[in-house]
């Protein structure tokens, strides 16, 4: 049996060839979200941070609560930081300065239902943060589609928004549309250049989303360099997303947004590096990961262009989570010494 382990093998010859242990793996993912969080806070104000802090705190709270009820050791489970990470991921997905109860409902769905009721870390078939997000999106569409336009760090209504005491009409007045939303609402048959010329978005919105997307990309590159995520899922997802978007764009450049637009707005890059790469709910083999990632990219464009929702990362990821057992079954690698198969279930 192996007496050596990568986490102890700190000799010069072997350093940096393998990923760090699970707990620090989760922490590295949290660290990699920092560029994105900073960019979002810079563009949308402290409401982003309030989301994250609330969600992460509730995540840890709910996790310990369920573990206590399940009579499982609490310390090791909290030590792996996975509940914290779920909180961070859901927090950045919600509109800034979401009311506390919205975050609470989302985190119950994420940590209690999607994760712990399925058996805890490693056993959840669906991405917890995305379950929480999807539940909120279908249950509270008003709150979930209210993204404030870019604004100063501290807004006057921040506290009232978080406490949920601000009337919805006021929030509506404060908020603007996201670029994806705006494009979705574009009048039928209006040429794209005309739409953009009409200045449909509050000032700086498009730039803000680009900046944020690039910040997520920076975090993603950090994850790749630290070997925390493999290149397979992000590459396959972004590749198929670009191909699909290009096909639609080539078919009707006025009706559908350009591939670059799809890449740099919404949650595309965040999803590619931080959501789709969740190892627990993703496919396991390398070929499986490629298929899984490509499926997500495909679904994102299909839902964005043809479906009813402006963004689709959560639904695409959840739908592909559903396919994981099937993908896994058909992408079992050929062990050495067995006849070659391209795809197919092991016999």
């Amino acid at each position, binding site marked *: 049996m192996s*007496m050596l*382990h990568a986490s102890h093998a700190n000799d010069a010859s072997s350093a940096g060839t393998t990923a760090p242990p699970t707990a620090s793996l989760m922490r590295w993912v949290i660290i990699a979200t920092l560029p994105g969080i900073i960019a979002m806070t810079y563009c949308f104000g402290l409401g982003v941070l309030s989301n994250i802090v609330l969600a992460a705190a509730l995540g840890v709270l709910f996790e310990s609560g369920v573990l206590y009820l399940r009579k499982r050791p609490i310390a090791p489970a909290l030590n792996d930081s996975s509940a914290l990470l779920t909180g961070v991921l859901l927090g950045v997905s919600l509109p800034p300065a979401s009311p506390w109860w919205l975050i609470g409902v989302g985190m119950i769905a994420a940590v209690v239902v999607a994760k712990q009721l399925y058996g805890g870390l490693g056993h959840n078939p669906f991405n917890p943060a995305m379950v929480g997000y999807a539940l909120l999106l279908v249950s509270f569409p008003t709150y979930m589609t209210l993204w404030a336009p870019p604004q100063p760090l501290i807004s006057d209504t921040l506290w009232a928004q978080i406490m949920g005491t601000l009337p919805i009409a006021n929030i509506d007045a404060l908020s603007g549309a996201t670029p994806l939303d705006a494009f979705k609402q574009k009048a039928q048959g209006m040429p794209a250049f005309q739409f953009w010329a009409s200045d449909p978005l509050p000032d700086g919105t498009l730039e803000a989303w680009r900046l944020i997307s690039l910040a997520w990309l920076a975090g993603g590159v950090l994850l790749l360099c630290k070997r925390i995520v493999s290149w397979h899922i992000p590459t396959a997802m972004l590749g198929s997303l670009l191909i699909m978007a290009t096909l639609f764009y080539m078919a009707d450049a006025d009706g559908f947004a350009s591939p670059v637009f799809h890449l740099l707005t919404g949650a595309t890059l965040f999803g590619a590096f931080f959501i789709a790469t969740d190892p627990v709910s993703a496919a396991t083999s390398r070929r499986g990961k490629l298929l899984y990632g490509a499926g997500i990219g495909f679904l994102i464009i299909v839902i964005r262009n043809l479906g009813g929702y402006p963004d689709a990362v959560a639904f695409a990821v959840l739908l592909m989570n559903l396919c994981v057992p099937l993908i896994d079954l058909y992408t079992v690698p050929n062990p050495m010494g067995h006849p070659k198969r391209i795809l197919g279930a092991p016999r």
Partner: protein
Amino acid sequence: MTLSFDFPGGIYPPERKVRSSQAPLQRATLPEQVSLPLRQHSGRPAVACVNPGDSVQVGSLIAKRDGLISANIHASISGTVTHVSGHDIQIESDGQDTWDTLAPLSWRDTDARTLLARLDESGVVGLGGAGFPTQVKTRVIVRHAIDTLIVNAAECEPYITADDITLQRYPDDVLEGAQLIASLCGAKQIIIGIEDNKPEAIAALEQAITRSQLASVTLTVIPTRYPSGSEKLLIKTLLNRTVPSQGLPADIGVLCHNPGTLLAALNAVRAGQPLVERIVTLTGDAIARPGNYWVRLGTSMETLLAQVGLDTDRLSGVVQGGPMMGETLDTLQRPVVKTTNCLIAATQAELPPGPQESPCIRCGACESVCPVQLLPQQLHWYARAQDDDKLARYHLFDCIECGACSYVCPSHIPLVEDYREAKSRLRHQQIETAKAEHAKHRFEFRQARLAREEAEKQARRHARLAQTKSPTSNNRADATAQPASTAMPSAAPQTDLRSLRIAQSAAKAAVRKAEKVLAREAQQAPHESHEDLETQLATARENLKVADLQLAQARENTQASTEESP
């Protein structure tokens, strides 16, 4: 140097070879006493052929091989046998170290049978770890054509440098040993596969090859990556041939030997010296004088480690073999045996105990390092769930237990331990089912034999009856009693006869089928026992006899009744 091919996966663990490879090869001091286990090889234990009180010399045969896969064991010191048990033989030294060697042979002028007999007599087994008897391995040419002999000098496990030192010190002898084995198995080419982290051994080998002027020897330097020295992976790397699943290298015309084995084989032939000592790497931070040592077999590990300055205060555990595939010893009261290639006396800091296991997060790190392309984490789930069906489907038995998956697992799951447990459980199950199957066949045979005896008895009785009846067949008094017995068969003689005929032809077909299956199996695996199939055939034959007898009897009855009825 020739082209080398790639195998998937693999890891780069810390090598930690420098300390033991820098010290020169030395001899360990002669032990005061040795304890030689009867089983130091794969296969069956040897059978002791000495008694307590016998005096022996170095190289005296003390235990004979038992069965095909087994090996002789020789005294490793001269002195007196003090203890003989079912497990081991102990010898007390007389301090003389007198040798009892066999006659030296020149292998180029000696026929293959004599050479094989010499390897057999000398108890040479694979010194790399498995301990498979060398002469048996060489005899595979009976069934497989061998074209290539591979010298497995990759030595990819961390710490171990025994082969490295062997090649540095005895390059010519290893090369000659390789030629000896190659000539025995008919291999046309010899390929030495060595990792590029052993420059001294590579230089020594290059010089030896130049000196010997052999065209058939190639030295292939492969990149250092664990587990390149695993037999199947090395063959893939050197020849780009793939050993079939559950198959042997011989199936694709290859034999693999470790340099130490080749040296031992050459010594057995050229010097007539049986396998009584080997080179062992003694290393680890708890040892003052690490290095490689010639050690007599049977030397206690405790005395051996004490000799090289074991610091018991700093010692946290002793590992036999490498840190990846070896085992942690619970006691040092164990002897060095033919397969002991390395002892690591590790400190706490060097090989710390595994941290707390956390749940699998399906990250797939294990899958990307698995050199045989399995899905370690799927196997982990199925092994824990004891889902044997799935374990077979995901090819548990193709796992080479290299430990690369355990090494990289971020959740510190002892994956290989799970697999070993599952494998031994499945093997045990297999044995149990075979036993049950065997018992079932024996029972069926007994039933068939009893039925046949009963039918024969019936037939004899019938014949007797017919005999006593025939002279008095016209006797009316007897005929009045007859209808009672004939009435029954005459009611349905035709249908009864037909069903018996069908039963007889079915029994005939069963015999034919059993014969065919047995013949096919016997051809495919001529050396294995086919007792179960033979029993099945015997059962089918008994059943046929019963059917024959019953049919014959029924025919007679119908004839008798048709004769009587007019």
